[in-house]
């Protein structure tokens, strides 16, 4: 099928389809190549619509007579942005695209040129949206057009938004597997729901021909992750979880000896009083000066419980400065309740205390399972502690393994109003992680779930089916219907290092998507 250039208006090229049997609408987001003389111009379709050149009257249909078939002919009228010229003039000027130039759908090579893509990077499919229908872009031969997301994208913070079932988790699995297998990095992924990330050792299964065709295009069959460990809270009865490989599971606990006191800030979700932020200092003081022998966390809780009636505590900061704080009685009660429920996470027998070496292993995927009832609370502390250890190890050059951290439902672990102190190492990673090769993927149902302090450092945003307010940050022109009607796996995106890629589809991940039997 071909299109004919009519001219330019307001910076966009206007085209109309050439008549023919296979005439159809080319969806928004598609790429066209117009050839004139020696030069090729690659265009991206911004708007596409149907026009009826013969404009038949509906009167005949009112009379229950069928119309003339020839009157039903339609043409496709397009406006497109000029993305790339194959050859640049030496005089600094830009070639005209003259009217009556013919254009056709771009090939993979031409799209690669237009997007400035490298050949490496996780491959996704370039997609289109038209009249609430999502399609994967194809060339004239019917082959899928792919795009390689740049590897650098991982270290510039990624946000993935989408409603449940939109394809968010599958995309995370796909990226995680790429990171371990191709980039030979380490992945630390948080599982918060069901068995989302607990089947990564199994190859994905599907009877859908489209999915199989996509895998074929990418050139890889489905396969499980080779090096996988799943870390479960000590009190989780994981043997009862259906379908998981119990042999890959390990129990973990927090250690009163080794925990970073700042991690206890994770307990303070829902406690808004700033006085509560002194908890780490109180714990540090107790551990330094009041702990006797091998007392465990329960003893600290007891210490906290038995404070004098004034609710005053000594504190010790990281520098070793002592101080004293008086807690408001309401704050004290909230903190006491939180500490009470936290005891079971500490010092469990037959459980390991995670260190950076457990995580920072080339080609290893580590899953932290916080999907149980108390999982988020446990995760709020453990995640902070572990991130601290990882950042310290990186800072001290104890490990050069690149790491990707995936935090699903991030608002369960970090409040959307958390201060920079509360965000702690998460904030550090977001701002300086690139140099240390630490990347983070945040996932949530909505942009508003992300801690406000971090939203400004997100460089890549991928939005699956979600509310349209998220789109304003991406710079994509789509209707609310189109945003909310995205099919599973399709997303609008703003990718670091690939600004021209706006609409894409993730393939089904090679591992972790297994049908329930």
């Amino acid at each position, binding site marked *: 099928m071909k299109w004919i250039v009519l001219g330019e208006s307001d910076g966009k090229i206007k085209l109309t389809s050439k008549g023919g049997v296979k005439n159809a609408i080319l969806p928004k987001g598609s790429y066209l190549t117009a050839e004139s003389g020696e030069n090729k111009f690659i265009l991206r379709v911004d708007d596409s619509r149907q026009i009826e050149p013969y404009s038949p009257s509906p009167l005949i249909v009112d009379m229950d007579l069928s119309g003339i*078939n*020839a*009157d039903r002919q339609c043409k496709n009228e397009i406006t497109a942005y000029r993305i790339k010229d194959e050859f640049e003039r030496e005089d600094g000027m830009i070639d005209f695209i003259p009217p009556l130039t013919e254009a056709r759908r771009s090939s993979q090579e031409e799209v690669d040129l237009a997007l400035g893509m490298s050949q490496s990077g996780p491959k996704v499919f370039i997609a289109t949206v038209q009249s609430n229908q999502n399609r994967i872009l194809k060339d004239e031969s019917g082959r899928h057009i792919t795009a390689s997301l740049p590897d650098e994208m991982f270290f510039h913070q990624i946000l993935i938004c989408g409603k449940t079932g939109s394809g968010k988790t599958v995309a995370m699995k796909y990226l995680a597997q790429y990171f371990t297998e191709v980039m030979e990095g380490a992945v630390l992924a948080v599982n918060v729901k069901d068995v989302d990330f607990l089947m990564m050792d199994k190859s994905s299964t599907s009877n859908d021909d489209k999915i199989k065709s996509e895998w074929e295009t990418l050139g890889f069959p489905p396969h499980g992750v080779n090096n996988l460990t799943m870390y479960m809270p000590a009190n989780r009865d994981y043997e009862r979880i259906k379908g998981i490989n119990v042999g890959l599971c390990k129990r973990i606990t927090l250690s009163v000896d080794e925990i970073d006191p700042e991690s206890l800030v994770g307990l303070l979700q829902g406690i808004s009083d700033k006085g509560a932020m002194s908890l780490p200092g109180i714990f540090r003081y107790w551990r330094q000066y009041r702990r006797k022998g091998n007392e465990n966390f329960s003893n600290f809780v007891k210490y906290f419980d038995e404070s004098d009636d004034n609710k005053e505590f000594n504190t010790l900061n990281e520098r070793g400065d002592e101080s004293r704080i008086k807690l408001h009685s309401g704050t004290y009660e909230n903190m006491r309740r939180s500490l009470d429920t936290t005891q079971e996470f500490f010092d469990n027998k037959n459980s390991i205390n995670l260190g950076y070496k457990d995580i920072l292993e080339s080609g290893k995927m580590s899953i932290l399972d916080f999907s149980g009832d108390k999982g988020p609370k446990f995760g709020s502390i453990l995640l902070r502690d572990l991130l601290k250890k990882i950042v310290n190890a990186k800072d001290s050059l104890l490990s050069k393994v690149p790491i990707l951290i995936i935090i699903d439902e991030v608002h369960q672990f970090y409040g959307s109003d958390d201060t920079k102190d509360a965000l702690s190492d998460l904030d550090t990673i977001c701002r300086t992680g690139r140099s240390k090769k630490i990347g983070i993927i945040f996932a949530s149902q909505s942009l508003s779930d992300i801690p406000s302090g971090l939203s400004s450092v997100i460089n890549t945003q991928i939005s699956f089916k979600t509310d349209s307010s998220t789109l304003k940050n991406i710079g994509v022109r789509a209707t609310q219907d189109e945003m909310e009607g995205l099919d599973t796996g399709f997303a609008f995106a703003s990718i670091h290092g690939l600004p021209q890629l706006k609409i894409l589809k993730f393939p089904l991940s090679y591992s972790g998507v297994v049908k329930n039997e």
Partner: protein
Amino acid sequence: MDFDTGSDYNLVLLEDEDKYRLSAKEGMEAIKDGNHSICAYDESIAIYAALEGKAVMVSHALVYLRPDEYLPITYLTLSFYTRSDKIINVAKESAKKTENPDRQAAIDRAVEKMQLIKNYCIDNTVLFIDGALIAGDAYTSVMAEIKKLSDRNIFPVFFVKNSASNLISDYMPDYCSGFNSDMHWANTILKTGERTRFFKYTDGHNSSNSKVFCYIKHMDGSSPVRIEFSTLTYEKHLSSVETILDMIYYLLLAQGNKQNPQIRPIAVAEKYAREVLKLYDINREVRSAGLTPTMNEERWG
């Protein structure tokens, strides 16, 4: 335009009833069954009046109605007419010497039309043509060509929508009197989906100039239209005439325009004719030839 051909003529009633019912459904079926190849002709004209003469650009369009598409064949001509020998000496064959540019342009236009039809209309075709059969000075050449078309089983049907003709009321005042025109009369006696009986007109001076015509009313609130055939064509294809009239009725409804009734394929031919006319800017072409425009310029088509 419709030219009355003078007062010396003969008019005969060819049918018994005053009016007959048409069937759009049968017309639709006839078109869809593909037994008739259908074609339509229209033209669009641009005129540039200069002091030195008149430039006339004509866009002729022949459009086939195929099962799934309209297939256009177009032909664009540009002629310059002058009475000036001085211009002819300079322009040579690029200009035509004539004492009456308007008359000559009309004749040439008719000749070009018939040439296009002769060369590109396939055999066994119903050919719809906008305008009257016998009109103006070119009708002699048109009639001659129609006979040749008839030998190839090409059935030209002429379609007239604006007419002040009084052929019937003048010839048969007892039959229809008190009306402003024959169309006025037809509008009064016809209901939607009906046609008048056929009338046969024969020129009193030249019996070969003969046509058969009737009026059709296709829509309430819309003027009737006149359908004309050459007598030769009518007599040769008498068995198909009813079917063709049903097709015409259906095609009028397919166009569906109350204010401007037209047979659908002719309307499409008109679109193509107008579009092709835009390919050349007659103003620029004539100005670049160094000619001087008159104060008033006409453009009609």
